[in-house]
């Protein structure tokens, strides 16, 4: 029982991490769009944002909404899977934010950097997805 944690609490923590991270990225991109950073290429910048965070965020928010209608205290999840999920999520979101914040130091244009960033964001996003799958599969009543 020691290695089990209440699922609802884990999901809330994961949702908190992802909502805060996405809000930061969203506000950064909004500020850049309003500031004219991307000129007439704003759509391309937002096209990068959507697949970068939205799929994982949707899964987590959907899971929290689903769980809210059930008895939350009885369902538990694997502690290790939760820790890995939250650790990888934090790492991924920091990586996305760092990509945006470090652009002024790069010789690449903003959209070039966004395109190239898929090289390092893609694999980590894949790992986050796998770990979240393990975490949700570890639920027990």
């Amino acid at each position: 029982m020691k290695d089990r944690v209440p699922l609802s609490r884990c999901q809330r923590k994961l949702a908190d991490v992802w909502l805060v991270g996405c809000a930061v990225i969203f506000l950064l991109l909004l500020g850049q769009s309003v500031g004219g950073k991307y000129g007439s290429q704003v759509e391309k910048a937002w096209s990068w944002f959507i697949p970068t965070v939205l799929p994982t965020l949707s899964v987590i928010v959907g899971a929290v909404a689903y769980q809210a209608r059930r008895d939350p205290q009885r369902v538990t999840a694997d502690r290790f899977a939760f820790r890995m999920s939250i650790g990888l999520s934090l790492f991924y979101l920091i990586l996305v934010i760092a990509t945006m914040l470090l652009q002024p130091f790069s010789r690449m244009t903003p959209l070039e950097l966004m395109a190239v960033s898929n090289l390092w964001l893609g694999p980590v996003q894949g790992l986050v997805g796998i770990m979240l799958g393990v975490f949700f599969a570890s639920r027990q009543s």
Partner: protein
Amino acid sequence: MRYIFHIITVALFSALLSTPSFAQSEVLDGTWVGMSPAAEGLLRLVIRGSEVRAFWTCRPNPCDLGLTIGTFYSLLPASSGSRAFIATFTPVFGEVVVIVSPRNATESQVQTYTRYSDGSGRADFADTQIFIRLDDRGSELQPMPPFPWPPPKWTSRYLLPDGLVTSGRPESLGTFFDRIVSVLRKAAVEEWSSYAIENDGFAIVSRLESIDDNGRPRPGAQRWGTRASAENVDSLKNYLTALFKARTGRYRVIAFIVTSLPVVAGAEPADAARMNRLLREGATALPESMRARVANSVRCEALVYEFFQASADEPMQLVESSHLTPTQHLAGAGLWRVEDLRQ
């Protein structure tokens, strides 16, 4: 006995050097131009040995009929020493037979027989002109590339007053060219390309340079860079500006047009890629034949092509109406002082 050998050797060499095969190609080598250019027909011949390239009247730029091999014929009686050189060109419109009969070292009679087979309905014709030889001895087998005429649409233009490039007196095109090049060098512009403008003048296109909003070149290597360099982020304010604002770019190309033809903009606006191609595809200097040509009533106009890049991810666009005047551009580039330009 040794002296007799020397005399015989010298005599043999002299005889060898005076053979007709050596003399006949030598007598026509060079660039030949018509004294009274025809409305339609042959404009120029560039002969080296038995190779000949011909240029034909076309609008807006002369057409190159291509390179062909001609044949020398001795005219009877052979003792007269007179010869003719005959070459046949097969351009897209038909066939052109050119017969060159040298009169002396610098003048030839050139007969042209033109047959049209392109279905255009034009009548075949024969033409006789006197051509004179320019002094570059066949160095123009690669023809001077033509400047696109009419020139691409520009941002602004300025007719340079006499005394800067032209003087109002008849001078050679080479003199005008040297004046422009000297001014470019003084302004630290190390790259340019020159082009022929029809049979009349030339154009010099400077390299695309990055400028600030006042028309002054950006400092150091940024002047010639179009690729974004890392932003200036030496303070928090600069960093935040770089993070949220677009990095805009302003660029310019100056084309100097020396011609007596009216300079009217073409329909197509210039784009930066085309201006870069112009820099790569032109010649750095004028051929001797063009340099020596004396021009009576040419003017020098500076055409300014200004480009603006709204963000690092967007292409440069031609500025159709700039807040910068042409004199601000020319003075900003360091070519002349404003007071010299407004004299």
